[in-house]
């Protein structure tokens, strides 16, 4: 295990260090004193594990392809942007556009997320991106989603607090969103419908929530005790009839 003290390092220097350590066969790195350095893990291919202490900067794990990153702290915008594979575990909150255009891999966020999270996610062949959010989410959750899975758990909500913002899954044309609890219909985009999860869905939720609980030391049964709804698109061609051919 290699420890890197990131304090005061520019992101170029830090990322160069991380990449060359990985290139040289180090498989477990601990980044201490991280504060605002962007693009950590960006475009990195292959196996390895990073532990990050502090607040990494934007676009953490963007275009990442295989690493596992565990963040002990909050993360900023764009975590997992266009990510291809790997795992990101966040012991805190994430802000806007987490998982934008994500194609594969998994992101687990213990806390809340900001606006436009999980938008434009897409599945491909054996890739099926997954984001699990412990808390609540802002507007445009799952917008334009073309594939993959979003799970929103709504843990620790205050009484009367909404689990998700408005315009949920507008333009969605693939994938699935599981929300623990109910969502007011007016919050949903007109392209999606809420249905009851099937038995197979329940089984998958058990696995997903099981992982989530394990990462954050929670009790899966308790979380699963509350029913989920599932959002799916009406069809794969939401704008098929918009045009005069």
């Amino acid at each position: 295990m290699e420890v890197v003290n990131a304090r005061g390092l520019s992101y170029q220097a830090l990322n160069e260090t991380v990449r060359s350590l990985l290139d040289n066969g180090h498989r477990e790195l601990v980044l201490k004193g991280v504060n605002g350095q962007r693009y950590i893990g960006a475009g990195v291919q292959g196996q390895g594990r990073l532990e990050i202490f502090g607040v990494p900067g934007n676009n953490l794990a963007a275009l990442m392809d295989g690493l596992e990153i565990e963040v002990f702290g909050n993360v900023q915008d764009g975590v997992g942007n266009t990510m291809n594979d790997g795992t990101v575990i966040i012991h805190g909150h994430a802000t806007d556009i987490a998982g934008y255009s994500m194609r594969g891999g998994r992101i687990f966020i213990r806390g809340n997320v900001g606006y436009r999270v999980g938008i434009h996610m897409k599945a491909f062949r054996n890739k099926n991106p997954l984001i699990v959010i412990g808390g609540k989410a802002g507007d445009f959750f799952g917008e334009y989603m073309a594939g993959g899975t979003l799970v929103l758990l709504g843990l620790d909500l205050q009484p009367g607090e909404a689990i998700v913002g408005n315009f949920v899954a507008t333009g969605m044309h693939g994938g699935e969103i599981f929300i623990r609890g109910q969502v007011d219909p007016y919050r949903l985009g007109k392209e999606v419908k809420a249905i009851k999860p099937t038995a197979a869905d329940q089984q998958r939720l058990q696995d997903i929530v099981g992982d989530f609980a394990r990462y954050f030391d929670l009790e899966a049964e308790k979380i699963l005790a509350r029913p989920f709804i599932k959002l799916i698109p009406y069809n794969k061609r939401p704008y098929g009839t918009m045009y005069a051919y």
Partner: protein
Amino acid sequence: MPTLSLMPPEFSVLRDENKCIKCLACARQCGFDAQKYDAEDDRLYTIDANCVNCQRCVSICPVGALTIYKNPPPMRPNAYWSEGHLRNIIKQAETGGVLLTGMGNDQPFPSYFDRLLLNASQVTNPSIDPLREPMELRTYLGSRTEPVTLQEGQDEKTRTPLVPLETPIMFSAMSYGSISHEAFESLARAAKEFGTMFNTGEGGLPEDLYQYADHAVVQVASGRFGVHTGYLNAGRIIEIKIGQGAKPGIGGHLPGEKINAAVSATRMIPEGTDALSPAPHHDIYSIEDLKQLVFTLKEATRYQKPVSVKVSAVHNVAAIASGIARAGADIITVDGFRGGTGAAPTMIRDHVGIPIELAIAAVDQRLREEGIRNQVSLVAAGGFRSSADVVKAIALGADAVYIGTAALIALGCHLCQKCYTGKCSWGIATQDPYKTRRLNPEIGAERLYNLLRGWSHEIKEMLGGMGINSIESLRGNRLHLRGVGLNEVELKLLGVKHAGEAI
């Protein structure tokens, strides 16, 4: 659809029965079901309403028996209520949809290219004969480090390499999916053979074409289709597509029926699903977000790939370009309002954006005023029709240009503007395997190569006429341009004098 369509046929196909040998090539080749054969009666006939005047039948007919006529206007000619307006209204009354179209803006806005004239040497300095003397068109794209020092190689670790072009003409972004694999491959092959670049557009790079990746500008658009590190590292240049000249400010929808297995594999999305590109990148809502994506891409490719940012030519393009340069881009691509497209809402295509000539002039001038012109290359796109247009663009300040429509015309496109239907008879804007095979990439690449060769030679002739033997002496050299019939504001914006004025 109403039972009675009020839409009169736009074209009429006339068959000269004296010539027709009933080989049926026309019926087999028509992509729009306008040519029919009745086997029982051994009779060929046409359905005019279906004809889009793509000229496929005319070209393929071995005996020249076919002629397509524009039908007379459906109503009394009216300079205000043009036929186009009437047709649009009828179509929308029948469908309730947004009008779609393909290829570039066809409206009669003034073309500044046609109001600019080039200079030539006489006596006081010699013209140069490109047949005899070296004439250099090589252009490097990327950010230039100055001053030049005597140290070897890159001056900084975070400086991306420069990319040479053997002619300042590249092939515009046209995605696999919007065009056929055959068309895409033609562009790739020609780019490689000529030593220039093609642009993948936003649809990724098919696996079998990675052999041409060294000549690829790989695009990252809002939909992020096919974007992964392998793709980014394979290409020579990465381009962030913010906007497109044909449809500034709006996104794109590639309909699910064009997403076949191969397109799906390249875009890395499921088959049959719409490929939706949102209007903005949802991770770029401000210029510093652009910088964030620029450096995400540079980090992900270890600073080995210059990053281009492509924007539509819009009203504030100069300031936008300055921001892009300062956001770390190595190349700025500006796409003018004449730029083509596979599909755009007609109203957007025809009424949004500004001419590329003015955009080049404004951007080049602005970057020079800020002293940062050398930090970026400026690539212009959007409606280049000839080598003269290219020369004028470079004299106005572009480093290089993209040609899209011209390239497609070289491949067979007849500008029928029906790309969005996916029925392209020429095998270009379609994924229908019956039609894509009409474009043999060998031939396509040759035709494109020929076009580049012809244009490049013409550019050399024009340069030689000006007494210049290197393209960099043309770049921004507006003294070699003169305006005709332009008003003072236009002359000032273009930075050129009026014809007849001396230096």
